[in-house]
């Protein structure tokens, strides 16, 4: 009874978002799976208004549209503990009935990859149904007169300053990248977001920075046009084989691996590069996975994979995706496993190396 009342309230509360989309479209059904009249909870271990929250809220109405029975899809925020809390709760609580899904981000994957003892979720056991990539561009002030990564050697002895959100945050990726390139970068921590880092760059406090694609396009492009900033490289994306490829948003810009080659004349390799690749995959190329709980029956998994594939193909979504998803190809259907594996696994020796690096260089206690 109580459940019924709630459902009605939920419907009243959030149907409006989906209303226009659900409409009279006949619901196709995948064998026996039908969510008619049900509510799907999309668990979000971050608070309202963050990047991942926006991502889930963007997808929610389309997911509702393509799941058989057009269930209500609501985003339930369970913030705290740097997103570990909510994810732990999900694996402890969610039943494998297709009515609870989890969306996480790089900042949830990183503590898992680093072996944080408080993590109780295991990505290997969760079942991915969507993986969304993201990207970013690294840039320098024009005053260094570095035109392309080939000139990066000119400033390798000069101390650069980067405004960072913390050594174990998503900014671990640029930290590993700069180190791999051989740049001498001092990381100033305590930034509240990439926006703060950009502000520090604009003030001249920071002398190297990166922004995610949409923030780069709106906020850094004017600086490039005014000749105060020069783009160096994008982080790149991962293709279906797991190779680093150019970012479709910035096809003219070399990606990180190309930049390394332009600077050093050879491809990067070794344990440091393995570590970088793992965190790059997890933080960018496969940043946001959406997953079903362990033990979910195959027909529900198939239903979800198809629903997300259909959602991504929806022309309306394609039209509206601009700032939320960028030009990145959303991994859906059967391609998903490979990308997901890249985002959620790390070689043991690479993990050891990073842990050791963070402890000795940045006094991080792991």
């Amino acid at each position, binding site marked *: 009874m*109580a*459940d019924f009342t*709630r459902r009605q*309230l*939920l419907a009243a*509360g*959030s149907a409006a*978002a989906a209303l*226009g*989309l659900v409409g009279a479209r006949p619901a196709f059904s995948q064998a026996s799976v039908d969510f008619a009249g049900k509510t799907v909870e999309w668990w979000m271990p971050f*608070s*309202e*208004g963050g990047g991942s*929250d*926006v991502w889930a*809220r*963007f997808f929610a*109405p389309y997911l509702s549209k393509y799941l058989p029975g057009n269930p209500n899809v*609501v*985003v*339930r*925020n*369970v*913030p*705290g*503990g*740097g997103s*570990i*809390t909510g994810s732990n709760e999900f694996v402890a*609580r969610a*039943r494998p009935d297709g009515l609870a899904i989890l969306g996480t981000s790089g900042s949830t994957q990183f503590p898992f990859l680093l072996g944080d003892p*408080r993590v109780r979720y295991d990505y290997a056991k969760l079942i991915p149904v969507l993986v969304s990539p993201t990207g970013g561009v690294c840039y320098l002030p024009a005053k260094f007169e570095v035109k392309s990564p080939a000139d990066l050697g000119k400033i390798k002895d000069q101390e650069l300053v980067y405004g960072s959100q*913390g*050594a*174990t945050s998503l900014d671990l990726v640029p930290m590993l990248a700069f180190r791999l390139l051989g740049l001498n970068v*001092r990381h*100033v*921590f*305590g930034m*509240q*977001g990439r*926006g*703060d880092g950009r*502000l*520090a760059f604009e*003030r001249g*406090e920071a002398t190297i920075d990166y922004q995610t694609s*949409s*923030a780069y*396009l*709106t*906020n850094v492009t*004017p600086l490039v046009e005014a000749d105060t900033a020069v783009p160096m490289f994008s982080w790149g994306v991962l293709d279906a084989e797991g190779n680093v490829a150019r970012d479709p948003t910035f096809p003219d810009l070399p990606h990180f691996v190309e930049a390394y080659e332009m600077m050093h004349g050879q491809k990067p390799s070794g344990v440091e590069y393995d570590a970088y690749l793992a965190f790059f995959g997890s933080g960018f190329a496969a940043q946001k996975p959406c997953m079903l709980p362990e033990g979910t029956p195959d027909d529900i998994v198939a239903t979800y994979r198809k629903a997300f594939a259909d959602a991504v193909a929806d022309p309306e979504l394609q039209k509206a995706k*601009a*700032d*939320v998803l960028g030009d990145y190809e959303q991994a859906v259907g059967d391609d998903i496993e490979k990308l997901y594996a890249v985002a959620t696994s790390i070689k043991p020796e690479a993990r050891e190396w990073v842990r050791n690096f963070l402890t000795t260089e*940045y*006094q*991080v*206690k792991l």
Partner: protein
Amino acid sequence: MIDVFVTSLHNLLTLHHLGYMMIGVAVGLIVGILPALGGIAGMSLLLPFVYGMEPTAAIAMMVGLLAVIPTSDTFSCILMGIPGSSASQATVLDGFPLARKGEAARALSASFSASMIGGLFGALCLTGIVIVARPLILSFTSAELFMLAIFGLSMVGVLSGSSLAKGIAACTLGLAFGAIGTAPANGGERMTFGSLYLMSGLEITIIGLGIFALPEVLDLLRGNSSISSTGKLGRGWLDGVRDTWREKWLTLRCSTIGACVGLMPGLGGSVSDWISYGHTVQTAKDKSQFGKGDIRGVIGPEAANNSCAGGNLIPTLLFGIPGSGSMAIFLAAMILIGLQPGPGMADPNRDLNLTYTVVWTLALANVVGTAACIALSPSIARLTTIRFVLFAPFMILIIVFGAFQSTRSFEDIVALLVVALTGIFLKRFGWPRPAFLIGFVLAGQVETYFYQAVQFYGYGFPLRPIAIVIALVTIASLWFTSRSRMRQKEAVPGGITTDIEFEREEDETAAARNLWPQVVFTAIAVAFFVFTIVEGAENSFLDAVFPIAVGMVGLLTAATVLFWQVRGATGRGTAGNMNFDLDDGTTSGSLWRFVGWLVGFVAAIGLVGFTLALIGFFVAFLKVVARSSWLQTLVLTAAAVGLVLLLTSILHMNLPGGLLQNQFYDQLVWPLR
């Protein structure tokens, strides 16, 4: 430029736009009046509807909401002593005593008129400043922001009441509480005891509710009357408006403070609130009534928090850096509807007209919101005449539910209980709670900006021109404060009871005969500071500097207080103005009985989850304490449960569970799980 104005005005004054703005205003009013829900909850309520809406309509709706919340949340500040949001904590200090004196009507209308002026003034400033805001914001680096934070801390002198030592000790206690969690520099975890919950630190909401609201509720329960001690609403609406008019310069000065602080990314609403309250006290000739119901103490912060909400829009729109939690959701909504904030928002050839539409919607919504608040006040203000024992369980529910909004876990409620116990003792022993709040609010800024300024500019950072100006203002402000402290000291022979007494009602003397209870509390504070130092020292150098420095200052001042109190307690001399205990010789019954009720409620949540505990608590409290009839008990309980369930279902929340839920989660259905 003119055509930009015309386009924006044209956008603004369409029926379509105004209609959506009114929806936002209406939601904002409701959310603001319900004390536990602030701007963040309001914005998350609107978020699902925003998607797919036409951009200007969505913006009108959200800005309408953002504009009225700092006005409508004043109801709970003044009528119940519950801070409606983190940006309106200072309003409680004088607003609630005014309501208790039976002057709720006057306090409300003064606050609404000040809010409106603040909002309009803020919008006016923003209209002029948008074009030059970019270079202005860029010229305030970490060095300047650090100096501003220090300026904020210097307000402790004004907010300390009779004993400066206790003021500084309370402030450092706040700073130490603020140091809990992940450190900004090396990410070390300080004073977290390995818990994930404390990793992100204590939330300002919980601190405000625990330090101000709960001690007040418990104290009122002893009195067993209504909130308004006269049982009446008291005189006039017009008086309040007249008060604001008389204090028009104060209103404008505080609006300026609010707009400036709002403009700076990284300072936020609570900083502007406390700085403007400090400024109000500092510039008042007669300080004797502050903390006991001085109307100026309401006008100042209320003017500031509305103009701050406007100022906040600038970093959000121009840099994509949200100045507050609700701005973060506003930003998210903009991205969802396809608007990416950035420099284009200040460019006359691009989106400047949109920015102006936003700013003026804010101004217009302010006026509409104020009118609505004034119209609603007479009926809402009646709450203060209800027998308090009937009202108290609702207030406790609201406070607990509000605290639970922080991370939506049971730990929020436990944290609230711990903070409330601290608050009860701070209040009882005359440690100024405003000083504690200032410390807590600024802890993060002081540490982060100091570290960043040293990293970016070296130890010479205070020599940057704007930093020097702020330093001079701080010195002038300190000099001004110390002069007025001295002068008042001379005026009273013996120099014991002077300045403002934040923790004292009426003119009762709070000097205790038995000093041992305060000695014990001060000793605990000393021990806590020692712990702060010892625990802090285990971190890497960069993470250890702040807790050690704070702990040292706290240890020194708390030890001074302890020295005098022990002297008094052992009869070797007088403890002078260190002796303060509101409970010594009190006749109004024990506070601990009600603390017991609170602990019982929290423990019950821990056992059987929120819903069942709530029912049990309401029924038991109303039957035992309020001695209600069964009918009344059941009606009130049903109302409370209904309200909570409605809110949680709209917000898609699960209520905190207890052991029962942990064991039988799968068998239970909402709302039990």
